């Protein structure tokens, strides 16, 4: 099969942004142009140009995994054996996703590279009573991608998998990719051609092609067999939406992998009222395996909250416990997996929000932040967290003003983090009782670097954030990328109170 030339497209099929010659991805929304070109027809169930298909193996290049493979440092998939609840190729997942066929479960537009078709999950963490109600919301978001947004709406990177009680939203690191189910993939394609979570592959018998050169097939390690380009992995861009919260994460433009991670979940309090959880973690790049640290922490915190909130634990106590659980999860990493003696133990920051019964509780360690942005933008917005950072300490001590402190090269040196080498874990928690509707924006510095003050953040948040949290999260990620995307960007948008008609308001 020959590949269409890229320069046949003059504008992005997703957001109409004019393209330049040679673009592989849309500069505005990040759409995989290669994929869009290959399969422009919406709903064609076409192949994501991902590593998700069957990597053909030319005989010339033996790629038989060797016994030593598992211990090979640097091999991404080998390095994440434990990953997340969503990690393993959950073959049981397809039943979840295929069953509720009455609701649209995947986007009609061509999905972006590594993400599987969007699937809104009926199951929720905890008792998940409200689950069906929020589906329309998620799928509405999903089926009408607004301009300027990536064309892969509420797709949980590992569809179906997060249904477990622990971390309902855990995006799937690429470990679950179908290399492990190579033999099954073609069968799925032939039979259903749809919604097989991460294993969906196109009907192309030759398997996916390189996103960079368009020529090479993809080897078992995720590199192009022609030009060697590292293929995008699922974690490069992740999105997920529940009825009362949505999150998006992107690798950004300057980093070679996404070391951020998020977990969002819904549960109910002991009294039966809905509770929404959003956790965001930012791996510390100078540490070993920061990507694993952020994933472990986000999942642990989310799982902890999902367990303690229904028990009726005090929100701030629940939050505190969740941060401690996250810290422990990261500490454990130091003792397992490949370690690099020249680097620090795995570490990450964390910020989490819990909304229930009209109370907004935040908890954090490090420099990831939460903002309050009221729906009525004439009302004051606010930053809800205080960074554990050099700059924040300078400001707090009155030694510098904010502008001076953040202009300093040391501004972003963090003074608190989760990790085995943290001096002393000091989890911060705070509770608020907002007197009006609005959204909580929970994010890593990859976003707030481009909207530092509460006013700037409020200006960046779309005016309809309360009604369209996923769109807002996508928009905010795009905002950071437009600003330069110098770091990984991750943001969760939590409407407060939860959207009317959504699960949260039930």
């Amino acid at each position, binding site marked *: 099969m020959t590949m269409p030339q890229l320069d046949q497209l003059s504008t992005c099929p997703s957001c109409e942004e004019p393209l330049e010659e040679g673009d592989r991805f849309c500069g505005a929304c990040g759409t995989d142009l290669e994929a869009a070109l290959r399969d422009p027809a919406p709903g064609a169930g076409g192949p994501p140009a991902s590593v998700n298909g069957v990597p053909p193996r030319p005989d010339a290049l033996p790629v038989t995994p060797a*016994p030593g493979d598992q211990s090979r440092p640097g091999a991404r998939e080998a390095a994440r054996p434990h990953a997340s609840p969503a990690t393993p190729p959950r073959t049981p997942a397809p039943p979840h996703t295929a069953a509720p066929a009455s609701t649209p479960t995947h986007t009609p537009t061509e999905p972006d590279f590594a993400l599987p078709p969007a699937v809104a999950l009926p199951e929720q963490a905890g008792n998940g009573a409200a689950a069906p109600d929020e589906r329309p919301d998620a799928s509405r978001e999903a089926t009408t991608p607004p301009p300027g947004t990536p064309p892969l709406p509420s797709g949980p990177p590992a569809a179906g998998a997060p249904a477990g009680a622990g971390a309902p939203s855990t995006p799937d690191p690429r470990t679950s990719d179908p290399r492990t189910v190579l033999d099954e993939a073609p069968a799925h394609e032939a039979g259903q051609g749809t919604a097989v979570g991460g294993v969906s592959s196109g009907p192309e018998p030759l398997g996916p092609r390189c996103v960079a050169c368009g020529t090479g097939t993809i080897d078992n390690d995720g590199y192009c067999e022609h030009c060697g380009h590292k293929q995008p992995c699922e974690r490069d861009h992740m999105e997920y939406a529940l009825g009362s919260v949505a999150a998006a994460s992107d690798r950004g433009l300057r980093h070679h992998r996404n070391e951020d991670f998020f977990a969002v979940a819904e549960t109910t309090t002991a009294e039966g009222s809905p509770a929404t959880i959003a956790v965001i973690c930012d791996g510390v790049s100078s540490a070993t395996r920061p990507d694993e640290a952020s994933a472990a922490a986000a999942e642990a915190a989310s799982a902890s909250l999902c367990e303690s909130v229904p028990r009726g634990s005090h929100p701030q106590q629940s939050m505190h416990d969740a941060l401690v659980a996250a810290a422990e999860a990261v500490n454990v990493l130091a003792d397992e997996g490949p370690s690099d003696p020249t680097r620090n133990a795995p570490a990450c920051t964390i910020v989490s929000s819990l909304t229930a019964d009209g109370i907004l509780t935040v908890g954090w360690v490090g420099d990831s932040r939460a903002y309050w942005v009221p729906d009525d933008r004439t009302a004051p917005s606010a930053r809800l967290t205080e960074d554990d950072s050099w700059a924040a300490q300078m400001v707090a001590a009155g030694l510098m003003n904010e502008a001076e402190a953040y202009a300093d090269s040391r501004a972003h040196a963090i003074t608190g983090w989760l990790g085995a080498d943290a001096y002393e874990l000091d989890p911060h928690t705070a509770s608020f009782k907002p007197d009006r509707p609005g959204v909580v924006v929970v994010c890593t510095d990859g976003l707030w670097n481009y909207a530092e003050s509460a006013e700037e953040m409020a200006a960046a948040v779309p005016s309809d954030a309360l009604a369209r949290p996923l769109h807002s999260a996508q928009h905010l990620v795009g905002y950071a990328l437009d600003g330069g995307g110098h770091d990984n960007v991750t943001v969760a948008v939590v409407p407060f109170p939860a959207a009317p008609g959504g699960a949260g308001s039930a």
Partner: protein
Amino acid sequence: MANFSKSNAPRFSVDVYQNEYLPEGAREVNAIVTVTSTGGGTTGGMPLPVTDPARATLHDGPEAGVVIMVDCSGSMDYPPTKMRNARDATAAAIDTLRDGVAFAVVAGTHVAKEVYPGNGALATADAGTRAEAKDALRGLSAGGGTAIGTWLTLADRLLGSADVAIRHGIVLTDGRNEHEEPEELRAALDACAGRFTCDARGVGTDWEVKEVTGIASALLGTADIVADPGGLAEDFTQMMESAMGKEVADVALRLWTPLGSEIKFVKQVAPAVEELTGRRTEAGPRAGDYPTGSWGDESRDYHVCVEVPSAEVGQEMLAARVSLILPAPEGGTPQTLSQGLIRAVWTDDMVATTSINPQVAHYTGQAELAQAIQAGLDMRKSGDEAGATAKLGRAVQLANESGNADTAKLLSKVVDVVDAAAGTVRLKAKVAEADEMTLETRSTKTVRVKK
């Protein structure tokens, strides 16, 4: 014949050490590839499964063939102990032969002559043939010239007559290869390369270092000096034991590079420096094989340098895929023993891009050490004292820094070390020829990174 796909075949592992982080615009990727083979030769510390039928088949026929080539030129009689020691050393080597190993002894002068078994084939080692071979050695006498190419050609013919997986030769010489043109030796080496591996030893001090190291290098064996003929027996025994430990022959290091990438160099850097760049044979699109010879229980390091197309910050690519390839016996699909990845990741993190991988730094130093010694000795021979002092001073500094104590000791016999750390040395006025030759022969020996 040996079947290496069975469970008793050695297991190979490939580890890649590199700093994959490159600053924007950078194109050169360096990596040290450590290849370790366990379970060959010995059982690698594992209990031997005696009931394993695979093991039994392994010993049905000869698995290895060895030809010992002994210099019998006229100079071997000066002093007469040299010939006697050579005979004794050969006898000791024969004693080390495992039962079942195919072997032959060749007497080398300006022509090559079969000493044992003498029927144009190899004998199979057992108590009887070992005794016969040692008897035959008594007939060896010195007389004639030296044409090592003819010895190797005969060894190749003898080894080719047997159906063995491991084919190995041992050359002992005491003089220059005077009775054939250098081109003839070169042609013989080219013909034998890849057909058998060969260790070479120079005895005394009348031989040419570059000839002996050239033979070992071309035939993927070791070279050394045995300055005192009395040390021959021990050296031969050791060499033969090492040859007996080999379980897998003709292993190739295969490098695949993506489009636009280019291998700048490939060299073995441990246990000794061996340039392999020019020995590439193409193996499919953008893949090439570099010979590594035969393997027992051992570990070797290779330095691979790849030039990749420059890319923007945030990009990652595979710069090269390293695999170990074992050719199939009857031209079937080669077996991939193990593999590793050399990556390139562009980042604007200065800390990441400026750090040099300790392994790469170490072996870059070891390669420079070998070069400095060879250049320094050449300059010394040609009378360039200033140049020799500078080069050998640098060598002393590098040997000192890297903890290469053996080489440092050899250097100290050629130069007076004033300040090892600074590399300040004075050339010794009088240097024993054996010391200089030892240093030159062993200049490529490296040490591994201090852990």
